[in-house]
């Protein structure tokens, strides 16, 4: 451990201690009448959640550690993800722009976080060629994040000079004003590839339909089930649910991120196993196993 790490540990502990002292102070202040003041530090009813999370966390971290050591990990081809690269490739051939729509939710949706990670990777690919990457955004807070992600992508490709701040555009916080403006971009600037990845709502149909009519290659992805049918119908490839989250790891091809994919696969296998065992037990009338999954 070097000095730097030690000082970091001290800093973290200091912040935690401050927070804890705050809580203890609150404890000493007389609780308002009529309120139950709970003094427990762990909710034992939630032990099962804790253990489940611990298992999933360790599965993911263990595989990441393995990947870091250089163990090769197999991940199957994911058609939709290859399609992203293909779409970017075609845009470069045609010398046209790529439109990246990161969904309409704010950073407090984890899909937007995943989308920003993918955006970084897409930017890295695009930076090598001189085509614009247009990112229209609905939530103001996403703008700086997207700027950082794209800037970083261009930087790692060695082309910080090609980064155009004006292509990361805040449009409007209003859902349909946003949709109307993005439709305008599709019709007027005619991007060759539209990537719609993130958290989408009612505007998905408008965007996907307009995009399809301009003839651009469209790759879409979201975990919002109610919008997936429109993407399935109107786009060339669709990333369904988990595939969107997988994309961030898959595209970067970084072993440690692929490790996390493996980890969640292991967790999935455990879930499938739990369902099989549980179903058998339930069928023969044994109930305790099912109760392990009751969340309070």
């Amino acid at each position: 451990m070097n000095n730097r790490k030690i000082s970091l540990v001290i800093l973290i502990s200091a912040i935690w201690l401050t927070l804890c002292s705050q809580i203890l102070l609150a404890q000493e202040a007389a609780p308002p009448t009529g309120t139950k003041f709970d003094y427990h530090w762990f909710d034992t009813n939630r032990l099962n959640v804790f253990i489940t999370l611990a298992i999933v966390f360790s599965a993911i971290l263990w595989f990441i550690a393995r990947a870091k050591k250089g163990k090769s990990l197999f991940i199957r081809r994911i058609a939709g993800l290859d399609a992203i690269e293909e779409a970017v490739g075609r845009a470069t051939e045609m010398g046209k722009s790529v439109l990246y729509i990161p969904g309409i939710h704010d950073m407090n949706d984890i899909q937007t976080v995943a989308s920003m990670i993918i955006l970084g990777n897409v930017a890295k690919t695009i930076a090598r060629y001189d085509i614009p990457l247009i990112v229209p955004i609905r939530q103001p807070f996403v703008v700086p994040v997207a700027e950082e992600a794209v800037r970083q992508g261009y930087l790692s490709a060695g082309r910080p000079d090609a980064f155009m701040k004006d292509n990361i555009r805040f449009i409007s916080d209003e859902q349909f004003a946003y949709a109307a403006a993005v439709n305008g971009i599709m019709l007027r600037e005619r991007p060759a590839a539209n990537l719609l990845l993130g958290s989408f709502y009612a505007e998905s149909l408008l965007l996907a339909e307009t995009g399809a009519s301009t003839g651009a290659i469209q790759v879409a992805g979201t975990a919002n089930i109610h919008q997936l049918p429109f993407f399935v119908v109107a786009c060339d490839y669709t990333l369904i649910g988990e595939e969107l989250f997988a994309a961030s790891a898959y595209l970067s091809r970084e072993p440690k991120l692929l490790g996390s994919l493996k980890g969640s696969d292991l967790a999935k296998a455990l879930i499938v196993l739990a369902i099989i065992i549980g179903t058998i037990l339930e069928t023969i009338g044994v109930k305790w196993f099912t109760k392990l999954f009751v969340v309070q």
Partner: protein
Amino acid sequence: MEFWQKLLAIDRRIIFIFVAFAIIVPLFIIAPPGFLKKIDVSLPVQSLYDYVENLPPGSKIMIAFDYDPPTTPELQPMAVSFLKHCFTKDLKVIMLGLWPQGPVQAQFAMEREILVDEKIKAKNLQYGIDYVNLGFQAGNEFVILRMGTDIAAAFPVDYFGTRTKEIPLMKDVKNFDNIRLVYNISAGYPGTYEWVIFAGDRFGVKIAGGNTAVQYPHNSPYVQTGQLVGLLGGMAGAAGYEKVSGYLGKATKYMLSQAVSHAMVIFFIILGNLAYFITRGRKV
């Protein structure tokens, strides 16, 4: 063959005209009684009705108005028929919203539909005693979490600026423990999903929902798992509740347009495919 090919390349404005007619014409037609009889009352609608029906008078119901004007055609009827049902059963209603425009819709529902209704006028409802509108608070699911410990802390003043603690109805309402049901009418985020996981699952209060048809399939699994007492989905759900509670309103009126427009979309799907396969067959 010419015909089918032309059909495939049809200007979409012609389709738009069909849509407009399918919607507008039935609005002018009064639906025959036989048609209304066929309106379906689905299980989640029935169970919400039954739950409210069996509450003792004076029970406190919370209604979260989590939507704004664009989705009112679907959601406002759900609010109106539910409110009418609550007031006829002498339940106390606490209204609020996690969407900025939600409490305004609550106010509209009360002023335009509830307080002018003859039957309800007889009840002589008093603001602050029989019902209250706590207004809007920002913070989405975190507001719900705050309410779990202290509702007055999450909503310090009501819609009109009165301190919540001074409102008679709120005197003995501390948190979700004092609420028999949270009925959430939602058009998206935050909405039923957030109420289920943050209020229902964490604090054990009963949750029911009224959703747009888009949201409905998303939240219907929670009915099966018992996390929702009941759920209304779209215009059909709203009309179902109107039917079962006997307060026929807008949803019932709109049902005919709804039926015709569905039939038309199905017709388009079939026609589109027919044209596609016939022209493709010829080319090969």
